[in-house]
């Protein structure tokens, strides 16, 4: 499986670390909304198909990435920096 890092270009999956489901929304740290915390910790869409994920290029530029991966075919449909501000300059 290859993931195309917006900075480094295509790299083997071994260079990346999975950081979890990209659909989760973390409540504010002071939040006492137990349902929101429960959803953040436990609720997953678990789709058979395209899935929003967060990966880190930990064995390369160390950027955090938003990745859309097909959970059936492992096809990587898109990658982008998880944080804005570094959108330009990706290797084509």
């Amino acid at each position, binding site marked *: 499986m290859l993931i195309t890092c917006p900075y480094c*270009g295509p*790299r083997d999956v071994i260079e990346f670390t999975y950081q979890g489901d990209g659909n989760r929304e973390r409540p504010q740290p002071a939040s006492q909304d137990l349902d929101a915390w429960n959803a953040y910790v436990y609720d997953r869409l678990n789709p058979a198909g395209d899935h929003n994920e967060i990966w880190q290029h930990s064995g390369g530029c160390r950027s955090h990435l938003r990745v859309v991966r097909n959970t059936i075919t492992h096809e990587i449909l898109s990658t982008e*920096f998880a944080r804005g501000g*570094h959108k330009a*300059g990706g290797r084509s």
Partner: protein
Amino acid sequence: MAEQLPDRLSPLEPDYHPGSHGNFEQGVDVILSETRPGSILQLAAWPGEEKRLIEVIRKITGLALPDGAGGGISSGVRAVFGFAPGKFTVVDEAEGLAQAFAGAITPAIGTLTDLSHGRTALRIAGPKAEWVMAKFFAIDFALPAFPLGAGRSTNHHDVFAQIQRSGADQFDIYVFRSFARSFWKALCHASEEVGYEVQ
């Protein structure tokens, strides 16, 4: 009176054996060496401050970074390359580069980390340099994909490495100093089949 500086020791010392090794009867196809730069720095710009940092690098080192991810340039004495968004490795044969940058990189622009004692710089050169490197790292070493001066962040058996192409058939590899001897021995073993010379 001259300042009394301590001797610089190489972490490779017990396994650094100048001369020809391996299958060199048909010719030496790679030359391995430790370049021992006096300064190895990591510079990082805050988001949006990249252009100002690149301008500071140009002022201090005289090296103009090309545009684009992983772009770099090497003068033989000094070298610079991008290794992550807004982050650059800068190398100088001489010591003291950190002091030269200290006043120029203001807190508004970014940060400076002196890694001169934390990294070891190895050089592999020769017609089979790409071949040997490709056995270590799962990246494309062909010239069109990895242009002259460009830098790459990658790893070897989970150990982080930075690589700059400093010649058409020459690469400089920056590894953690504590892992340098282990990596050096592996590099020597991998070079045996093509014949190598340690300089």
